[in-house]
């Protein structure tokens, strides 16, 4: 059994809407082992994105504990969380979120620049991941000249190029047609396996959940 990349317990999160206190997560416990491909499914408003945001260290929580790759990350300040994200967490968004003024290569390079890798190492990693996602020929194109599937493959490459411990993917196939979604799922699965990366995915997509090692349902802020 691999050591867990994500180990959270008793996670509680509330939002305030005016004077109303809205509970989003009600004491979540989740353990995700290294290299696992885990999906969280549930209806809109069930708290999937909130859970992923907390696991991705882009949102904080009101109570509970969180160990990322064995490190207690509860109560870290924003700078410390940013530096952890920079090195150890990748993101794949529903709308790809590529930077439109950057080429494919530059979008993929951005996390490596943040990580301070030398140019030769950056080039080696980018060339390798471009080959793996099948976009080597489109490396110098801007995102607006790519299809949705190609953009999502760039986003996957951007998430994986820094070889993170964890990739957070929020509805990664929601904007894709069936055939393209299947390709993207296969790609994520294959690359996750190859890089030994843990994937935590929020999805409605049955094709996606069918390919996951573990599927957890989230209903009204509680994991089933």
């Amino acid at each position, binding site marked *: 059994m691999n050591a867990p990349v994500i180990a959270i317990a008793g996670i509680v999160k509330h939002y305030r809407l005016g004077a109303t206190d809205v509970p989003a997560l009600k004491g979540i416990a989740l353990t995700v082992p290294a290299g696992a491909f885990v999906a969280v499914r549930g209806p809109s408003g069930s708290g999937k994105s909130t859970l992923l945001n907390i696991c991705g260290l882009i949102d904080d929580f009101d109570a509970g504990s969180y160990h990322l790759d064995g490190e207690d990350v509860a109560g870290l300040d924003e700078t410390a969380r940013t530096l952890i994200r920079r090195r150890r967490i990748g*993101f794949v968004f529903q709308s790809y979120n590529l930077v439109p003024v950057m080429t494919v290569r530059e979008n993929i390079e951005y996390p490596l620049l*943040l990580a301070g890798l030398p140019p030769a190492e950056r080039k080696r990693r980018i060339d390798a991941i471009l080959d793996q996602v099948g976009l080597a020929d489109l490396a110098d194109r801007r995102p607006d000249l790519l299809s949705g599937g190609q953009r999502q493959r760039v986003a996957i490459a951007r998430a994986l190029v820094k070889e993170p411990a964890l990739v957070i993917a929020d509805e990664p196939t929601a904007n894709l047609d069936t055939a393209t979604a299947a390709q993207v799922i296969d790609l994520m699965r294959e690359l996750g396996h190859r890089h030994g990366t843990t994937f935590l995915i929020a999805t409605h997509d049955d094709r996606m959940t069918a390919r996951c090692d573990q599927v957890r349902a989230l209903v009204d802020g509680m994991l089933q």
Partner: protein
Amino acid sequence: MKALRLAWRNILRNRRRSFVTVLIAALGTASLLVAGGFALYSYDALREGAAREFGHLTVAHPDYFERDEETPMQYGLADHQAVAATLAQDARVRRSLPRIALSGLISNGDKSMIFVGIGVDIRAEAEVRGPFLKLVAGALPAGDGATSVLLGADLARSLGARPGTSLTLLATTTAGSMNAIDVEVAGIVSTGWREMDKRLVYTGLATGQRLLATDRVSTLSVFLDRTDSTPAMLAAAAAGDSHHAYKPWWEQAFYYQSVRQLYNRIFGLLGIIIAALVFFSVANTLTMAVVERTREIGTLRALGALPAEIVAEFLREGALIGAVGTLLGMLLAAGVAQLVLGLDLQMPPPPGRSETYPLKVYVDAPLYAVVSCLIVLLCAVAAWFASRKAARKSIVAALGHV
């Protein structure tokens, strides 16, 4: 380089908006440079005029500038020739002119008027005053001038005097008695100052001394090779001579000082207004860009960019807008300066003066450097102002921005 290339691409995202912002920065820069270039020209012209009028340094009796004389020439210089000889050993000294200050009445036989005169080597005086003393009629006295004088244009008009006219000068001698000498008008001059031209009489030095019955002079005006040499020369001369008072030109150039103060305030205020326009224009452009790119900011933050790195990106964009704007502004200002020079435009006479003066705009490298740095800095600060909040916005909120 990569970061600058990215900043440039971001600027080009909304070309029209960026173009307008660059244009405002360019016009702001050009306005500051043209106004500054005109101010520098004005300061330079006034400085040269003052230095040529008083001399770069004025040497006098220690009490000359401090006390009022009870009798004429009480604080005159008796040893001006020795002082001039000493100063002449310094390579920076181009010429020393002894001067005697005169005042009294000038008469054509029918009409008497008050005059304020200077007894001096008139030809040498005309040479050092250059364009600041204009001969409007007649000629400079030949040789030592004997009893030939130059009259201010307005004084000559009041007395109905022309070159060749005989006049009488009346003044109080050093002994307190009245003395009169007959003189002949050699030429009529204009200093450009109406009040001065109403009273001005130039006599030869010997004539002035004869009128006051003295062998002293009031002051020794020292002219240097360059106006910039004045502070160093003042320090050297004053340090080597404790028996005389040395006064630099700027302590006597009250008009220069007051114009400079006035211009500094006018152009300072203008500069603040222009800087504010540029600042708010760039801040507005980048605020719109920040709002449009809120989601992108959230993405970059999620990928591990620190708020400071997001702000740095916008700083580069602001600075780049400023750099392109200042580059265009400098070219525009230099073009305006050349155009003004080519058109030979004249400015109307300033208050108290009787003559127009040429409009010139200096293309001054330090001014260009300071203004361009200032504008670029201002644009960078505007970018910081526009982006600082968005860079610290909650990542979740930024990613959810529509």
